[in-house]
């Protein structure tokens, strides 16, 4: 034994696929870059300011919390940065700095640190921060009030307050390219779709949740439009406005808050998509997408129970 080299003794498997959480988060950030560029194009450098501030605060708050709670810091996996950027994408570009700082910190602290850190969050952390801000500071969170020096409009507010006749005038191509008010990154629909395609190609997200969500939105919007054609708009409008596409691709598939089983994911997606239109139609908020995400998150543990029986059990035995 003296002449042999010192060997590594560990349990199998001795090899690994190379898949890493850090790389998945970096892919996520990369997928958000086109939308960020578009946001700067439409809203100016304010958009960049908000995203940068939010990202920095999220990382700092997360790291500080981990230190105070005696946990090992996980800065290297970029997950806190992702939360900060996603939160920023939901804010209007004109959000004041104190709102960005509070919301971003709350996203990481209330969104996941109190639940045990990475992987512990029952709800999407960025949406938790958004929800707290939306309810605490509704004025600053409303795009029409936060963005006074712009010629862009907020289509969903038009729908809610002025009706479909007025809101239906929005050319769909403009909506696709991001010529609307709303979350600074969330309204950049086409760049987000490109980013989402990248994530699907890289295997960071699966198609089940986004497709089911968009299907839920489209079907519910179509159904409502058939029932009440004078009070509603069709599927295309609802898919291209607000945070619907952003929620489908970047908020709903968040790992810890979404189901892992196939049917669980599909029902989760459809439920979320349906709730978007329901909240937009009957709720007091013009855009229901982030709240729909939270409601779907709450259903996750139940939906995870929809799964096949394991090996050797049930009808397979």
């Amino acid at each position, binding site marked *: *034994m003296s002449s*042999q*080299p*010192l*060997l*590594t*003794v*560990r*349990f*199998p*498997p*001795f*090899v*690994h*696929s*190379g*898949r*890493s*959480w850090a*790389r*998945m988060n970096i892919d996520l950030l990369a997928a958000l870059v086109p939308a960020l560029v578009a946001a700067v194009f439409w809203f100016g450098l304010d958009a960049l300011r908000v995203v940068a501030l939010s990202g920095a605060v999220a990382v700092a708050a997360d790291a500080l919390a981990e230190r105070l709670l005696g946990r090992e810091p996980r800065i290297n996996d970029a997950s806190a940065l992702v939360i900060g950027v996603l939160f920023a994408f939901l804010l209007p570009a004109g959000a004041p700095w104190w709102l960005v700082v509070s919301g971003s910190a709350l996203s990481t602290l209330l969104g996941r640190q109190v639940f*045990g*850190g*990475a*992987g*512990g969050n029952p709800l999407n952390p960025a949406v938790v921060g958004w929800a707290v801000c939306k309810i605490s500071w509704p004025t600053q969170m409303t795009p029409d009030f936060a963005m006074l020096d712009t010629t862009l409009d907020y289509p969903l507010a038009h729908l809610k307050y002025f009706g479909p006749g007025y809101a239906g005038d929005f050319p769909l191509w403009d909506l696709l390219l991001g010529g609307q008010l709303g979350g600074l990154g969330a309204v950049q629909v086409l760049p987000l779709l490109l980013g989402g395609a990248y994530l699907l190609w890289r295997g960071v997200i699966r198609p089940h949740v986004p497709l089911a969500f968009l299907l839920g939105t489209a079907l519910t919007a179509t159904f409502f439009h058939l029932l009440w054609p004078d009070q509603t708009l069709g599927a295309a409008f609802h898919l291209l406005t607000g945070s619907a596409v952003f929620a489908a691709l970047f908020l709903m598939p968040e*790992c*810890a808050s*979404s*189901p*892992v*089983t196939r049917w669980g994911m599909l029902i989760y997606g459809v439920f979320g998509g349906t709730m978007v239109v329901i909240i937009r139609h009957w709720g007091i908020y013009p855009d229901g997408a982030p709240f729909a995400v939270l409601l779907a998150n709450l259903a996750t543990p139940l939906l*995870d129970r929809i*799964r*096949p*029986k*394991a*090996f*050797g*059990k049930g009808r*397979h*035995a």
Partner: protein
Amino acid sequence: MTTSFDLTPRDIGSILEGPASTRLRLELCGRGLTVSEGDKVVRGQPLARAEREGGGRLHSPLDGVVEKVGGDTVVLKSEPREGPRKKPDIEVPDEPLARLRAFGVDSFGLCPARTLVVNGLEPEPGVKTHAAILMHRRDELLAGLDLLREAVRPARVVLALPRGVDTVFDAQSAGFEVHLVDPVYPAGLMPLVVRSVTGRENPSEVAAISVSRLLEAGRVAQGEPVTTTVLTAGGKVFEVRIGTPLADILDAAGLRVAGADVVAEGGVMRGAAQYDLSRGVDKGVQALTVVPSARVAHCEDAPCVNCGECVRRCPARIMVGLMTRHAEFGYHEKALEYDLDSCIECGLCGYYCPMRRPLLQYIRLAKSELSLQGLYPGSAASASSGTEGEAA
């Protein structure tokens, strides 16, 4: 770097003779020793009896003397035989399964059954043990099959072979029904082979045996105890005497070992890593693998983020993430509720986990803790050598 999960055995050469080591170090694995230090032994003589139900005895692979007994090991030193070879005195029970055990074959998974499945697929990628045995040891396999038919009395005998390499063995004339399986890991693991053949999972009237163990049974049918194991090392197949030091086998295979490498009895997905190369090879080992240090995966004490990759990859349809989280925090009975007992220990979950959690270790920990309390069938010792009854 992605591992290939292709189980197709390639370049199946002949079965080479293992190294002629002068000292053999046999691991008792809990068996009760029946010889003492200084005793002279002849090849085939029983050395230790099985303590586990269904376990086979251990026999001496050489003529010589018992040099040292210590820990769970017995070291035999080869010495030239004085006089003509005596046939070792082993009483031959009538009952076929008892006969198998008396001659060193474990009888787990064998009982009277309607179907006998013989697993001809390789257990792990890079291994070609079964293919080599099928190609070169036909007579012994058929002799073993006769003995198995006596023990199991099956109505149907099926040989599972990898698709694309089914020409190594003429199964038709041997009386086997052939069933082809796509050779992609973990399709070679016994529970999955049985499912592929019978269409049911863990069915009750099926007995299953690997080609390696069928060869051992063939040895018994010819009146000889089990003293060797056929294994793949460095792309070649060897028949080595049990207890041959791993270092000698690595030399014969041309495998170099550097610091921080993993040397495993078995393959990259399910093998048992070794720390001492002077240790003797265990009975039933089908491969000896060296994983270079640069390729050895590291593990992290990281939380589960519920990405679901393990759930998607698990061939046993287990909610792996949730189940291992319970095992991680000591809730082993809850882990059992989440289908811990369905796990076939293929290792795919840990291979794909992006947080690099030690998933297979949590699973084995839970199984071990539960079996200590009598709540889980199987023995805690299976975790160390990876041969749970017979995995592949």
